[in-house]
């Protein structure tokens, strides 16, 4: 269906415009589609987080603006847009203003990589996984810039913690995905999905794949700075951490990016471990337009898992965070890669 629609739009544009102009117009159209997706996802995730939090905390949550509070985040966003952008004396103005864009652009770009359906993927390059990891680590530079330029000691401590945390947990994310790449033999996201037509990778790779998944979800939680790894903004210690000095829409950028990053981590897990747009056991694979539904369903189950973490666990201390990574996750990860290699070598993969 997506293919037909895109073909029709393509033909329609060709009939209107000269052939050289068509790709540029299409690029803009795709960008608009992804921006819309970004905004809707961000707003929906904020609402979802608040409702899930309320559910965990014996509360009701926002339920007054619109049906069951669906318009609450839109109202909040409008409020943030209309708020004053408070400037700071002695701040590094250039970095201070640049930081939010760094954070938001990387997460927006990463969104374009996911195979929501065989015909709904922004760009499918042969180093997809690699690019995703690279993009997710650029985001932290934005956080470092924000903390450094704010001229605030709390922000600075938050940013330094963020640097330490990301450098450490990048390793785990990379290595756990590398484990899965051993199974697929490709870094291209569409091919990774193709391989999973014989069963999701978490089933194909069974034990090592499951270990890799657990490590990935732990490291992913750390990467997105969520509890129990929310050192960066540790509310009870640092006030608001790196974004203490940001107000209005600049703050909203950080806030949105945080939620989109959570979506990105869960979407990576969905793509690599749970077969992206493939339905469970291929029950509806013939109906292509259900692809995005399955993709979103799986991603939101994982997002719920991460929200569950957040509203249940206390926060780790910064040295315990590093101990967990360097003394436990990293060695386990290295052994796991060897295990997976043996699995692939001896052909012990389960295929359906």
């Amino acid at each position: 269906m997506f293919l037909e629609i895109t073909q029709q739009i393509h033909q329609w544009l060709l009939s209107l415009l000269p052939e050289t102009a068509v790709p540029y117009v299409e690029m803009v159209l795709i960008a608009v589609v992804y921006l819309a997706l970004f905004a809707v996802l961000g707003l929906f995730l904020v609402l979802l987080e608040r409702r899930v939090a309320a559910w965990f905390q014996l509360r009701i949550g926002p339920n007054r603006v619109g049906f069951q509070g669906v318009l609450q985040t839109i109202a909040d966003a409008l409020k943030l847009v209309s708020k004053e952008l408070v400037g700071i004396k002695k701040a590094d103005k250039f970095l201070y203003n640049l930081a939010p864009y760094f954070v938001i652009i990387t997460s927006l770009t990463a969104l374009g990589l996911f195979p929501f359906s065989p015909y709904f993927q922004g760009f499918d390059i042969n180093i997809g996984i690699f690019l995703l990891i690279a993009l997710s680590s650029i985001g932290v530079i934005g956080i470092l810039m924000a903390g450094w330029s704010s001229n605030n000691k709390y922000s600075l401590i938050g940013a330094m913690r963020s640097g330490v945390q990301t450098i450490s947990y990048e390793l785990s994310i990379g290595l756990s995905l590398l484990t899965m790449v051993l199974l697929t033999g490709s870094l291209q996201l569409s091919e990774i999905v193709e391989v999973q037509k014989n069963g999701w990778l978490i089933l194909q790779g069974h034990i090592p794949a499951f270990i890799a998944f657990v490590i990935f979800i732990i490291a992913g939680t750390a990467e997105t700075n969520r509890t129990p790894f929310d050192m960066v903004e540790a509310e009870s210690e640092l006030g608001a951490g790196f974004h203490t000095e940001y107000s209005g829409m600049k703050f909203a950028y950080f806030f949105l990016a945080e939620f989109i990053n959570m979506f990105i981590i869960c979407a990576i897990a969905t793509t690599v471990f749970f077969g992206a747009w493939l339905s469970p056991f291929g029950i509806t694979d013939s109906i292509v337009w259900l692809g995005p539904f399955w993709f979103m369903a799986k991603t939101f189950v994982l997002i719920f898992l991460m929200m569950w973490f957040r509203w249940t666990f206390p926060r780790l201390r910064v040295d315990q965070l590093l101990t967990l990574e360097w003394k436990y996750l990293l060695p386990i990860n290295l052994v796991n890669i060897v295990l997976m290699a043996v699995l692939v070598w001896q052909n012990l993969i389960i295929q359906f």
Partner: protein
Amino acid sequence: MLTTTAPEIKSEEYFINMGPQHPATHGVLRLVLTIDGEIIKKVEPDLGYIHRSIEKMCESDSYQQIVHLTDRMDYLSSHINNEAVCLTVENALQLEVTDRINVIRTIMGELTRISSHCLWWGVMGMDVGALTTYFYGFRDRELINDIFEETCGARLTMNYAIPGGLMYDIHPNFVKRVKEFIVHFKTKLPEYDRLLTDNVIFQKRMVGVGLLSKEDAISFGASGPVGRGSGYSCDVRKHHPYSALDKVSFTESLLTAGDSFARYKVRIMEMWESMSIIEQLIDNIPEGDFRLTTNAVIKLPKGEFYQKVETARGELGVFIISTGTKSPYRLKFRSPGLSNLSLLNHITVGGKIADLVATMATIDIVVPDIDR
């Protein structure tokens, strides 16, 4: 011989103001921290942001009026504060109150202790990053506040105890509702353990952090759960029983580890003990007067009077010097918060910023109690 010297990297200690507006300082406490990276070098509490000179005000108030001021000290154990002043005045007048008054005062005091610990537990979780605990703590605290509201009309600043008895008799529903609460809380308190106490991350944050030896606890004047977490047996209810506390049997919650986790556990144990005390008293509240007739203007005999009680935070002492007039010549509160805060620097130096926040939560600071 060639020697290569690495370029010297200089690191500096810097200071940070934690508070007076900071989520972890529970009010308007200002801590001046000297830190080296993340490691705490020195903690200097700076007080006075909420000083209302309560002790000075007491010198021009009548004894009935003083009771009302004590609500505003440690507002989480307001009833116990009221009781402390009432007991001092009654002792000075050598007024024997009826058993009914004693029993009701003790039940209200223990309910206050549970409600205070509920709030502390919620905030404790928040300080270590688990926000959900706050709402669990408040769920159970609300029920106690409802009982208070029904009994005396106030939920926080109670003014229920007055010199010579109680402001009102208990509400007809009181016994029933307290029993309902005990049944409810017995099922909910294990939930606290499941949610927070047994959590691995929480234990990692608590065990072995903020160590306070028994000797230090005594020399810093620590009292309440802070002292008892270090093995210092200092429960006033046990050693100098007041009101109806000599009629009940309970064990003093005492742990010897002296770390943050011990202080945490002591408070959880105290909630169980308080429930047991209430259970022993609630079924047979004796008949009798709920208020003895006193003079409209109470004049204490000339002399010095001291009475101490156990609030949710520790030992509260009331010292009155009377010259025989309607107001005290001098009144001094020995508040548990101030002496407990004084050991903060001692137990947090060398830890991380996160440890400071967690340790401060286990000391259970109420700033108006420190500043008065």
